[in-house]
């Protein structure tokens, strides 16, 4: 036990130790019986000087301290025993609202959400590489080419393809989560009007 620690102890006794010093000396006193005994003697001297001692014997003081802890330990043991009994009885009385059920429900919900996210993102990743804003440049099929069979087949393919791409772009916009894809999707919905307006010029 260093002299510095004992000086800190003396200052702590008078309430004159700063916060850091106080914590340090209390930490040490918690571990060091010799330091605690010194603390006890410093207080005993103070009490003797102030003439407020009824018994200066350290032995009787130790005996009193032991009696207090025995009584408290007995009480704490009784409380712990009561708690154990309560915990054993709790599942019967608690029913569905028991902590175990709460955890199980929480896990099920978390699993469901995780599965939906993983499955949903997996589907979106399988989209064809053509799905995007670039399809805006694909010419729309006009009803004026219905009499040309080969052309009609080609036109129908284009229409179907365009509808397919449009559907996936919309899905991407809805499922992507960010604001930007959603904006793109909204822009895309207006695009066919523009394309249709340009179409007659290109047909000529």
């Amino acid at each position: 036990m260093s002299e510095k620690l004992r000086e800190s102890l003396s200052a702590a006794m008078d309430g004159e130790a700063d916060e850091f010093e106080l914590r340090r000396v209390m930490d040490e006193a918690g571990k060091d019986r010799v330091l605690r005994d010194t603390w006890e003697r410093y207080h005993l001297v103070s009490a003797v000087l102030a003439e407020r001692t009824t018994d200066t014997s350290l032995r009787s003081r130790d005996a009193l301290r032991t009696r207090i802890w025995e009584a408290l330990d007995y009480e704490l043991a009784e409380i712990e025993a009561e708690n154990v009994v309560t915990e054993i009885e709790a599942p019967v009385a608690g029913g569905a609202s028991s902590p175990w059920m709460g955890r199980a429900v929480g896990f099920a919900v978390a699993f469901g959400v995780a599965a939906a996210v993983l499955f949903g993102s997996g589907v979106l990743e399988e989209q064809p590489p053509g799905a995007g804003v670039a399809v805006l440049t694909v010419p729309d099929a006009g009803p004026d080419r219905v009499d040309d069979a080969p052309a009609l087949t080609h036109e129908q393919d284009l229409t179907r393809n365009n509808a397919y791409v449009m559907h996936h772009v919309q899905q991407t916009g809805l499922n992507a989560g960010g604001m930007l894809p959603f904006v793109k999707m909204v822009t895309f919905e207006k695009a066919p009007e523009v394309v249709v307006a340009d179409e007659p010029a290109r047909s000529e």
Partner: protein
Amino acid sequence: MAEDTDRELVRRVKKGDRAAFDLLFSRYQQKIQHLVARYVRDQDEVLDVTQEAFIKAFRALPRFRGESQFYTWLYRIAVNTAKNYLASRSRRPPGVDVDIADGEQMDGGDYLRDVESPESSLARDELREAIDAAIAELPDDLRSAVTLREFEGLSYEEISQVMDCPVGTVRSRIFRARDTIDQRIRPLLRGDAE
């Protein structure tokens, strides 16, 4: 401030630190026992009531919010415990409560001689003589510092003004005085503790 030390100890006890409770016990056991002796005259009863007061304090500590000083709170518990003890034995407590300042009073009083056994009285007198002798042999600056602290109850700041020296010097002087006294009394207490 002394309350800072108590607050720190209380905080530790609340966290389950038993050593901190031992330090609180060492700090206030004499004061509480002295206070209880004003209500109860028999030494064994004084010990029983003191024990009960500390047990009650330990139980109630989680509810202690620090709005009053710890000693004031502990003092009330001790007074109530003593009064309840007397009531349970159909004995009347003193007509007027012992004031907290009276509990601190440096007057031993006749009641102390009723409570003390001849052996404990002798031990106390012997200890007091050793302390007085140690203080008398201290250098002037140490004796003045410890006297102003222990008898006058001045703070380090106040002592530094009285003695016209820095607070750090006061702190060091008080410690060195206590250390000297401690070395003097340790042999007297050693046989007792073993």
